[in-house]
């Protein structure tokens, strides 16, 4: 690449900088920027790094709580779990890179989120991957899904961080823009959390890890543009991940953290060296001077602009105490990693970039990291809502064979067993996995304590499309319900907000409403937001995806013995439904799979009721005698009950159950009313379950008993009977059948 001789309005526009933004840059600098500086501003002020469209809304989310040690603003959130331990977690998107090159896009997404976690001093112990694709029968979506899953497996397995759960949903809405969100959780001693701060004037700045190439230049601005016909041509920006190098970085950085040498540390992710250096200086209230001539390079002829903007993977930037350089370098060399002093902390608040003796950029660090533009973009309620909300579902034809409908739903890709996917991921490493993928939440024990952690990821794009506010609420509520069903108290969330182009008022309105809903639910359920990620511009050829906020929820089990799964355990156990079923078919999986409709309003969610239902479930689990607990969600009560029967093959456990309620049978069976949990308990515990539900004012109905090798469901105007073997076949082979 050659440096252009002049900064023209065209060049500024190509960098995604508006004339107003350019005027601000000139005010900050007191002059025109040079080419390198223009590049630096363009990535730091891009939507991806600056959150310029979302900031005003994100500020409304609750971020404080008793156990929150670090909220948004650092590489990841930190939550105290007692016993001197803290958990560090975050979720991010890698949608755009995965669309361009699915294998490497997903792989580097995993690598990036893992770096965010060990940067804080935590050992990464678990990954979750919520994924969204177009229908898998379509060639392109299939190619993307295969590539993404293989990329996650290749990177996560090799680097040695188990993938303990996630989601896979398919819908036409994601055909032109898949979603690849990645969640990582780590564990650290509470007194040894590290922050991405540069302090102590004169302290050396050390560059560690892979050499710098031209990978991913302008990755950050790419994520801030929508796809068009030419985006496949923009492919040379693809980064390649090296999980082996990342494993070495994890071990070496954690070893450095055990010494007292480290002052601050940040990984070079989006916007690479630029972002890590100016953010560390800005947070530390200092400046940083770096010399690009010392940066290890993989390619020749790179100009300063390229070195500053490169997104080569597996690189870290450290600030260490003066005098410890030798000790730190030796440690990295033990792990065969390149480590080079590239600069020092200064007191002038500037990011000063030199190439040898020549200063090639000089910008106030705070201006880049904190003083980016903030927009109150116009909002407008989308017109489609009038139509979807008015859809009359009362005239919907009732399918004749409800048992076949149940089998169809169980075999549909969104409900069917995801084992074909998660068996490609190591989900057992570290000997913590007490509940494997496939139940409501994964449960990990916390070694050295009696405690456990429950992890779940959730988000329903269809609900959010039909009512963004309710969709945001429901995502939080369902994720919380998932960890409650595993026996855990919901602690806190991270989120990944996947939306279309925020410059369109309808998209901005969806975003504002969804965030408002999430905030209300987080406040009601006392699960603060510890950080996350916003991914805008998820559009192809002007069509946005369903607005898809995804919640990563972490819950705490005080006693790992309370870990509970969704599957029935013993003949003779009594099955209860906590919560209430209403005639709500809007936005349901049933409506989509059977009637091909995505209309109506999503199920109504009363947050007080939600909290009470969760409270009852937790209390009955803690009191002992609960064999299983399962959230009713996609596919409704009938699907939830069928899933409870998915026990060990050939040792089937069915149930004979009566579903009370006066409404259309399909609504009773497949409607997705919120705040419902199915529990099965030992027969001697039935009275205490009823008493606890009464005390919290939660409806609690005895449905029947576990036993036999058939699932029998009876109710007003219907009766269906299916062998558990048939249910298991439909559910177990659904995904592989969809992939054929």
């Amino acid at each position: 690449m050659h440096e252009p001789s002049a900064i023209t309005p065209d060049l500024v526009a190509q960098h995604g900088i508006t004339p107003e933004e350019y005027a601000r840059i000139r005010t900050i600098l007191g002059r025109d920027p040079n080419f390198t500086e223009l590049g630096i501003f363009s990535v730091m002020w891009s939507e991806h790094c600056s959150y310029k469209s979302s900031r005003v809304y994100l500020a409304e989310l609750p971020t404080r709580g008793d156990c929150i040690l670090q909220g948004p603003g650092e590489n990841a959130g930190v939550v105290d779990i007692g016993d001197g331990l803290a958990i560090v977690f975050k979720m991010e998107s890698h949608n755009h890179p995965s669309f361009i090159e699915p294998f490497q896009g997903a792989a580097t997404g995993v690598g990036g989120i893992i770096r965010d976690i060990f940067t804080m001093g935590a050992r990464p112990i678990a990954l979750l991957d919520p994924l969204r694709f177009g229908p898998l029968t379509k060639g392109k979506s299939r190619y993307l899904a295969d590539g993404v899953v293989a990329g996650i497996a290749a990177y996560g397995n090799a680097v040695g961080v188990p993938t303990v759960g996630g989601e896979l949903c398919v819908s036409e809405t994601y055909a032109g823009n898949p979603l690849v969100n990645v969640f990582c959780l780590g564990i650290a001693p509470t007194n040894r959390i590290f922050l991405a701060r540069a302090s102590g004037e004169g302290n050396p700045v050390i560059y560690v890890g892979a050499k710098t190439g031209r990978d991913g230049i302008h990755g950050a601005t790419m994520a801030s543009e929508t796809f068009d016909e030419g985006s496949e041509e923009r492919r040379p920006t693809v980064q390649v991940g090296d999980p082996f190098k990342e494993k070495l970085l994890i071990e070496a950085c954690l070893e450095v953290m055990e010494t007292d040498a480290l002052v601050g540390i940040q990984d070079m992710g989006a916007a690479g060296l630029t972002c890590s250096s100016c953010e560390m200086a800005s947070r530390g209230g200092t400046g940083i001077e770096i010399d690009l001539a010392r940066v290890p390079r993989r390619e020749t002829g790179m100009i300063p602009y390229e070195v500053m903007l490169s997104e080569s993977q597996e690189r870290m930037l450290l600030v260490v105490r003066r005098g410890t350089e030798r000790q730190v370098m030796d440690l990295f060399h033990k792990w065969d990693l390149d480590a080079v002093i590239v600069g020092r902390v200064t007191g002038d608040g500037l990011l000063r970039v030199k190439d040898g003796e020549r200063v090639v950029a000089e910008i106030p660090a705070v201006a880049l990291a904190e003083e980016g533009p903030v927009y109150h973009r116009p909002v407008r309620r989308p017109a489609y809502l009038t139509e979807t909300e008015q859809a009359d579902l009362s005239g919907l034809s009732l399918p004749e064979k409800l048992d076949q409908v149940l089998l169809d739903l169980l075999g549909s890709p969104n409900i069917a067993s995801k084992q074909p996917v998660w068996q490609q991921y190591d989900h057992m490493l570290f000997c913590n996995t007490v509940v494997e993928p496939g139940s409501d939440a994964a449960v990990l024990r916390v070694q050295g304590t009696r405690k456990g952690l429950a992890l779940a990821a959730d988000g329903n794009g269809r609900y959010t499309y039909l009512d963004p506010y309710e969709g945001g609420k429901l995502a939080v509520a369902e994720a919380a319900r998932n960890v409650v069903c595993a026996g855990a108290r919901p602690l806190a969330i991270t989120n990944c907000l996947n939306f279309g182009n925020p410059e369109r008022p309808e998209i901005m309105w969806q975003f504002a409403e969804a965030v408002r809903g999430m905030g209300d639910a987080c406040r009601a359920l006392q699960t603060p937001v510890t950080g996350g990620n916003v991914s805008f511009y998820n559009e192809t050829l002007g069509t946005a995806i369903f607005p898809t906020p995804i919640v990563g929820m972490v819950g705490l089990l005080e006693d790992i013995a309370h870990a509970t799964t969704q599957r029935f355990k013993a003949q003779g156990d009594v099955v209860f439904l906590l919560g209430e079923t209403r005639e709500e078919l809007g936005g349901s999986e049933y409506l989509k799979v059977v009637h091909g409709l995505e209309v109506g309003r999503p199920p109504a969610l009363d947050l007080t009721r939600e909290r009470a239902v969760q409270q009852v479930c937790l209390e009955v689990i803690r009191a002992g005698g609960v064999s299983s607990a399962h959230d009713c969600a996609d596919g409704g009560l009938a699907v939830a009950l069928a899933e409870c029967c998915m026990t060990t093959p050939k040792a089937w456990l069915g149930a004979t159950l009566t579903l009370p309620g006066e409404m259309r049978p399909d609504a009773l069976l497949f409607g997705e009313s919120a705040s419902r949990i199915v529990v099965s308990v030992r027969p001697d515990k039935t009275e205490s379950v009823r008493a606890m539900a009464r005390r919290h004012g939660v409806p609690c109905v005895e449905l029947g008993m576990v036993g036999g090798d058939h699932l029998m469901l009876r109710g007003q105007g219907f009766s269906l009977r299916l062998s558990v073997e048939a249910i298991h076949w439909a559910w177990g082979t659904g995904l592989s059948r969809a992939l054929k």
Partner: protein
Amino acid sequence: MLEAQIHVTLKKSVLDPQGDTVRSALATLGFPGVTDCRIGKFMLLRLAEQDPAKAKTQVDEMCRKLLANPVIEDYVFRITEVAG
């Protein structure tokens, strides 16, 4: 009979972690003289097509569509006559 010999390698500008790791392993083993190592795939295809020019067009298309990933890989091939 015509045979296509195809080499697929990562593009020069794309990081090759495997090649780098092998290069440093060779250095450790006492071969410090290897300045670069790139690892790729080698494929041999037997073709029914008799005409070398047509075969070339076909193989080129195969490479672009399936055998190489144009996002990150380059390919070269040659077509030779072999004993059936």
